[in-house]
């Protein structure tokens, strides 16, 4: 070790954006390397994520056939398209930060994250993206196989396909920030699994996973519009299926942007309060 006094450190002269890009590149590499250690677990988990929409698809196809060919305006081929896209969108926006937080706070490993000079959310976003890099090609292959088997119908106009991409990016961050905020409950209570369960049920119901939201009764549809869950899964799916008018699409993107901003504000406030609580009661 050279005889150079320690600190104040010579931080990299690269601009902040460059440092953040470097951080993300390293976090992605680290997460990918760690993920490859658990190939089998990842495979099993993906099978679960494929089976769930297939089950709903089979159920709703049966309902449609027994109701004279369609249910709520969805024919079997529409349900096929809906659940294939839903599977991909859900996979793209899915997070598991709630389980992570529970573990971190219980085992005290959050302290290490708090001692770093970067916000811990960056690690989580990078980790989440890394898992998508690995899983999405496999999910796309599964979607291809499902398409061969269920013959989906996609009467989607070009503009809707174009808007699908920004709506998916917005959906990703709306869901990520919401889940991350809910995960902060781990700082306040030991019973996080109960909160996770409620959150999970709300997502299942209001994001359009159990059924397309158009099939829900009126008041629930209104609730689904106001709540953030549709904007984190269901809306991009509806867009990809060509079920929305241009006005509805723009309206939806505005809702997504609104929830994204609200999500960031709520997350910041909740984070500050949670860390304050953590540092008051001990890590």
């Amino acid at each position, binding site marked *: *070790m*050279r*005889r*150079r*006094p*320690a*600190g*104040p*450190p*010579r*931080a*990299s*002269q*690269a601009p902040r954006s460059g*440092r953040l890009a*470097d*951080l993300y*590149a*390293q*976090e992605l*590499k*680290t997460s990918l*390397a*760690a993920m490859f*250690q*658990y190939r089998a677990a990842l495979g099993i988990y993906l099978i679960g994520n494929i089976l769930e929409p297939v089950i709903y698809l089979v159920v709703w196809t049966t309902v449609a056939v027994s109701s004279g060919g369609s249910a709520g305006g969805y024919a079997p081929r529409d349900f096929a398209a809906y659940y294939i896209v839903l599977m991909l969108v859900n996979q793209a926006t899915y997070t598991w930060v709630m389980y992570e937080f529970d573990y971190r706070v219980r*085992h005290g*490993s959050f*302290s*290490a994250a*708090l*001692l*770093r*000079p*970067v916000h811990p959310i960056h690690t989580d976003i990078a980790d989440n993206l890394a898992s998508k890099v690995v899983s999405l090609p496999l999910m796309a292959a599964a979607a291809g196989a499902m398409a061969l088997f269920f013959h989906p119908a996609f009467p989607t106009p070009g503009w809707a396909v174009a808007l699908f991409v920004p709506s998916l990016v917005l959906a990703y961050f709306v869901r990520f920030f919401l889940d991350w905020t809910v995960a902060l409950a781990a700082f306040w209570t030991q019973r996080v699994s109960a909160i996770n369960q409620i959150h999970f049920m709300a997502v299942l119901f209001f994001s359009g996973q159990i059924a397309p939201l158009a099939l829900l009764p009126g008041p629930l549809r209104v609730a689904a519009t106001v709540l953030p869950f549709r904007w984190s899964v269901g809306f991009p799916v509806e867009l990809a299926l060509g079920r929305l008018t241009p006005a509805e699409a723009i309206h939806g993107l505005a809702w997504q942007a609104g929830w994204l901003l609200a999500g960031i504000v709520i997350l910041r406030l909740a984070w500050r309060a949670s*860390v*304050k609580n953590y*540092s*008051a*009661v*001990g*890590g």
Partner: protein
Amino acid sequence: MLAPPAIRVRDLRKIFVVSQRDPGLKAAVRSLVRRAKERIAAVDGISFDIAPGEIVGFLGPNGAGKTTTLKMLSGLLHPTSGDLAVLGFTPWKREKPFLRQITLVMGQRNQLVWDIPAADSFELNRAIYGIPAADYRRMLDELTGLLDLAPLLKKPVRNLSLGERMKCEIAAALLHRPGVVFLDEPTIGLDVTMQRRIRAFIAEYSGRTGATVLLTSHYMADVEALCKRVIVVHHGRLLFDGELAGLVERFTAHKTIVIRLGDCAADLRPYGEVVECEDGRATLRVPKADTARVTERILADLPVSDLTVEDPPIEEVIERVFAQETA
């Protein structure tokens, strides 16, 4: 002009509110409505300064408040009251320039990602701390040399032994060349050789970089080897702050006289308390004030082939300090 202290602590307090209830069903039901709370002072008004470059041992039995203090100093815990400054920063604000200049090593779980080689975690820390590439390379080479990390860097962390992992943890914690280093039991669970290695390394790091080190350890060998000064806490209060030698001086009323005789036949009781006598080697405990007189008498009365006067082992001193405090 004197340099400002690297660490400044004034009347620091941390009170935890802990809920508690009596055993039994009745108490369980009662606790549903009304929970009894108890306020526990983990740290109860301690003050000290640590100068830049000092290595200070922070001692105390389990539950004395050592870890709580380290957590407050590193910004993980918010003090209930008192003043605290580390390198001029208020730790609990966790400002980035502050976090870039400190490190806290607690146990063996901190910096390293379990499933990947340590080298990858080091690279991640480079990005997290924004260490310029050349500085990183140089520091990594130096740490690799000093801690003999070369054979470990490419193995997944979970395949490393406890000692190997600790070496990597310490390296990861120092890559950004922190000016203040908090070490909580850095040698716990390690074998004697590895303990010595880590100890030598800490001294080397502080010597070369001028870093300030605050270290807790259950191994007095760590403290004796590294720290001229110790701070002793018990029940959250400061018991002693000064030179290690002063601690022995203040808390021991006795000295140990070890004599070598032909056998253990002689009655040694008139000279002092006989701790043991085996194979002609006797250990006596005598009041400090009487040491010179007793030594003189022993040399005059007995066929002694060797005689040494020692302070009691530091472990014994510390034990006595805590025992006195508890009593």
